[in-house]
């Protein structure tokens, strides 16, 4: 494992009951790059993503084998504080989920949960996060408004800003643009490319085009198995595996 590996998935399997949804996967995620996990629905991408910050803990009958290392430390080790892990590894979901509170409180949520109470620090954090999500200008006069009143695209960018407020090292995104229009999608993709400078990004893209646009590295996942992992550009132009090629060219999926 070399130094620029942020996350290393190692011989990792995940189960729901008897059902093995991720099968002995081994996969690196490099620092300051975007990794796209793509493949047909139901292939275990979401489960893998949710395993990376242990949201699977809250699912009944979820088990796993193998390890996931973040900065070389197994996140499933008993001494790991899961709350602390989640503050380092943020997660964005397919559907925007604004919490039923104001825009400000949504963004301040993470910092507050980690114990920050000082109004000044929260203000700073909200402004900085909105700036990084490129929505400070649209939002600065609407901070007190309920987040439920925002448009879908705004809600999703708010979700990202909310994660950014925690200053995470890794951001996991599960089809973040699935419910959005093309313009919002574009804004979010732009934002992700900018974010690479600060953190590591793992995304389950909405479609192959998006994967091709964003990915530094890409991994093709089929029925819980890692079929192919390689440099993004290479994988989409000259796939090494027949199955990858079939999928990319639209022969199945």
């Amino acid at each position: 494992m070399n130094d620029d590996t942020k996350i290393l998935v190692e011989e990792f399997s995940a189960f729901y009951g008897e059902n093995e949804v991720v099968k002995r996967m081994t996969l690196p995620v490099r620092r300051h790059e975007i990794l796209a996990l793509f493949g047909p629905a139901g292939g275990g991408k979401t489960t893998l993503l949710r395993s990376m910050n242990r949201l699977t803990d809250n699912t009944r009958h979820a088990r796993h084998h193998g390890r996931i290392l973040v900065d070389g430390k197994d996140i499933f080790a008993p001494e790991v504080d899961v709350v602390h892990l989640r503050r380092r590894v943020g997660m964005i979901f397919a559907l925007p989920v604004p919490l039923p509170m104001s825009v400000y409180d949504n963004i301040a949520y993470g910092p507050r949960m980690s114990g920050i109470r000082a109004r000044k620090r929260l203000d700073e954090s909200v402004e900085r996060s909105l700036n990084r999500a490129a929505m400070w200008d649209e939002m600065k006069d609407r901070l007190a408004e309920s987040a439920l009143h925002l448009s879908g695209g705004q809600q999703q960018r708010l979700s990202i800003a909310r994660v950014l407020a925690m200053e995470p090292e890794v951001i996991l995104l599960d089809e973040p643009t699935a419910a959005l229009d093309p313009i919002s999608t574009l804004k979010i993709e732009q934002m992700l490319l900018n974010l690479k400078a600060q953190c590591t990004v793992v995304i389950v893209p909405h479609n192959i085009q998006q994967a091709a646009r964003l990915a530094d590295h890409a991994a093709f996942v089929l029925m819980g198995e890692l079929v192919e992992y390689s440099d993004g550009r290479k994988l989409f132009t000259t796939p090494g595996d027949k199955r990858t090629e079939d999928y990319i060219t639209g022969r199945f999926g």
Partner: protein
Amino acid sequence: MTAEKQVRVWPRVVQRIAFALIWTAALATLMVLAFIVLYVLRLGLPHVDWRFLSRYPEAMGREGGILPAIVGTVVLTLAAVAVAAPLGIGAAVFLTEYTWESRVTRAVRFGAEALAGVPSIIYGLFGFIFFVTYLRMGWSILSGALTLAIMILPTIIRTAEEAILTVPRPYRDVSFGLGATRWQMVTSVVLPTALPGIVTGIILAIGRSVGETAAIIFTAGTALTMPTSLLSPARTMSVHFFVLAIEGISLEKAYATGAILILTTLLINVLANWLVVNAVRRHARRG
């Protein structure tokens, strides 16, 4: 030809008769309700005035007002809710957020269901031997309130559980994803979102406490004095009403007390409904 005609006509006749009966039943039910409410209000309200609400009873309630009974009802109910609400909400949170279906949850649910089915007279007997006699609390607000608390616990648990289950699943993921601990998640997202439902449950429980008689007579006593502490006995409005009515002390005052009871019930129901409607509307807006 005739047979076919019969087949076609007969079901329509049956349907007409059946629907007529059903309409009658529904209207009869509404009329019974209207009758009870209007009957008590019509005979009671003329005797209700500010003095009736603000004065002490005299001659066992034949004269004067019902102030101690009002105070007794309020204090007893509040004390019962103060005990039952944290327990009930805590149990609901435990069942929904802290555990998966297991022997423990089944036992708790069974317990709650069983408690919900226990008749109030049994609560009265129990409260009397346990709180009044065994723990020597005497006939007191405390005994009454603790008995009532056990009685309303199932209502609070069930409604709180239902309210919590309507909180969208992703809220929890988001909250966890942002590094909240489970308890932070519960207090910052789940409980605030479920609050209207929980409050509705509490209001229904208050309604049950206000209307309860059998369990209170044996635990809080029937003394018609102003309660001065949690250890004084108290008479609630329902008990006062029962005593006035069955002992024929004063029909006038009985009707008046009954009218107050009905109005309280109405108010409680309106409040609960308003909260539910509000919650539904908020939920709908959220999509």
